[in-house]
Each structure stands twice: as C-alpha cells, then as structure tokens.
C-alpha cells in the first residue's frame, strides 16, 4: 500500500481517481486542486506518489512538477491530463514526471502506471 496525493482541479476527477486508487489498495493521504496547493501538500505529506493534472487554475501541473522535483528529486509523479500531445508529454517527462496518462482513462491503466512508477 502506497500513500498518494491526488492533484486535479475537478472534484469529480479527484473522486474517480480516489476510488480507483483505493480499490488498488493505496491510501489517499491528500488532495489538491491546483499546482500551488500540490507543492505545499507534497511538502507536508511526503506521499509515495502523486497523480498530477496539467490544466488547472493558479498553477498548472508541469510547473508544479518542476518545483516538487527541486525539493524532492526522487518524487514519483504520474501526469494525468486530458491534453497529451507528444510535445507536452516530452515537457512533462523533462520536468521529472515518470509516466503520463491521458484522460479519459481505464482503471487498469492507472493502477498499471502506479506499479510501474513504484517499481513494484
């Protein structure tokens, strides 16, 4: 069981991800609705992994990945975005994300990504 921080501006999507991750045996330790909140919560909660949306108000997800990586270079971050063009995936990976899931997604795709990123 791993501790996860879910970052998405849509409460609906946070709920969906929470259901999937809990079913997969993970513990949701926190939720954030923008990049800035994500950075703060990451610092306090030190989760094992993060699901990170991109399009969010206040601060978008790729910027948040960069800042989280500065404070913790080992952070495990999975991008989870409705945008997924090649150039954006490259940007996210360069920022330090370890995987990229395009919405809408299947439950199995999410859990498979978590397994991959945690190296289990």
């Amino acid at each position, binding site marked *: 069981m791993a501790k996860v921080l879910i970052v998405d*501006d*849509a*409460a*609906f*999507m946070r*709920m*969906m991800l929470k259901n999937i991750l809990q079913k997969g045996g993970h513990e949701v330790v926190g939720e954030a609705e923008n990049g800035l909140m994500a950075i703060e919560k990451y610092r306090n909660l030190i989760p094992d992994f993060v699901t990170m949306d991109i*399009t*969010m*108000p206040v601060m978008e997800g790729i910027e948040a990945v960069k800042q989280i990586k500065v404070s913790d270079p080992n952070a495990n971050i999975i991008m989870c*975005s*409705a*945008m*997924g*063009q*090649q*150039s954006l995936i490259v940007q996210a990976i360069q920022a330090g994300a370890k995987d990229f899931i*395009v*919405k*809408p997604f299947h439950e199995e795709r999410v859990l498979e990504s978590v397994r991959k990123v945690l190296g289990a």
Partner: protein
Amino acid sequence: MLHSVMESVRQVIPIPAVVQSPNVLEDTVIQRDIEVFVGFTGHAYGRIVIQGECKTFSKLGEFMYGMPLEGDILHSFVGELANMVAGNTSILISNKGITIDITPPTVMVEKLHLHGYERGISVPVQFENVGEINIILLLQNQGDG
C-alpha cells in the same frame, strides 16, 4: 477544427450518437440548464462550449462512470467533460501541426450572452438513451478580445 472537436467528443463519450448537421450560431444568447466553456489559445483562438440539460449530463455520467451525478459533483463532471473534449481535441489537431493550449473549464448555470467572437458553429449531438447536448465552437481572430 470542428471535425477534430467532434472526433474528440466521440472518443471521450463512448455512447452511440447521432450527430446532426452544424448550424451557424446566430443567437448570442445561450440558455440551457448548464453550459461549460473551455478557452483555447495558440495557433487557433476561441472557445469550445458544451451545453445541455442537467438530467442529460447526469445520465451521461451514469453511462460513462456507472453512477448518476447531481449537485456540485455533476457540475464538476460537466467541467471535466469539457476539459477532456478540449484536451483530446488538442491532441488530434497536434497531429496536423496545430498547437493549442487550453484553459480550465468554466461551468455556468445561467443564461449567457456571447460577444466578441467571429464565427460560432453549433452541433447538436443525440446520445442513445441519454439525450441531446450541443457542442459549440466559437472562433476568434487571434489577438481579438
């Protein structure tokens, strides 16, 4: 671009649907139960709007995710639906060399007056056993507004 938007709608909402012919939007007032806007900028500039009745969106949510939705979570679902349609549109058009970035969705439950767009096209889509929603593409010349 409209073609990519409609292709994206089919990808995001996997429910059999009849797509009616597009209408040029003449009325500047949008009035349905609920509508959601996502702005896009870059090589193209404008907005994607999805509008419909709450009960239709609630059924859509039920078909897609197995649970009927209401209240705040329904509004959030409608916002995320538009985010997914716009996001997947951005992927489809990136294959044609067009790059856009999208804004977070704005969900509205009131009558709307639209101003300052160059062209508006509305496409009613009838989903089997669910109901009809309207997909609207508003295009502006870059640099306007």
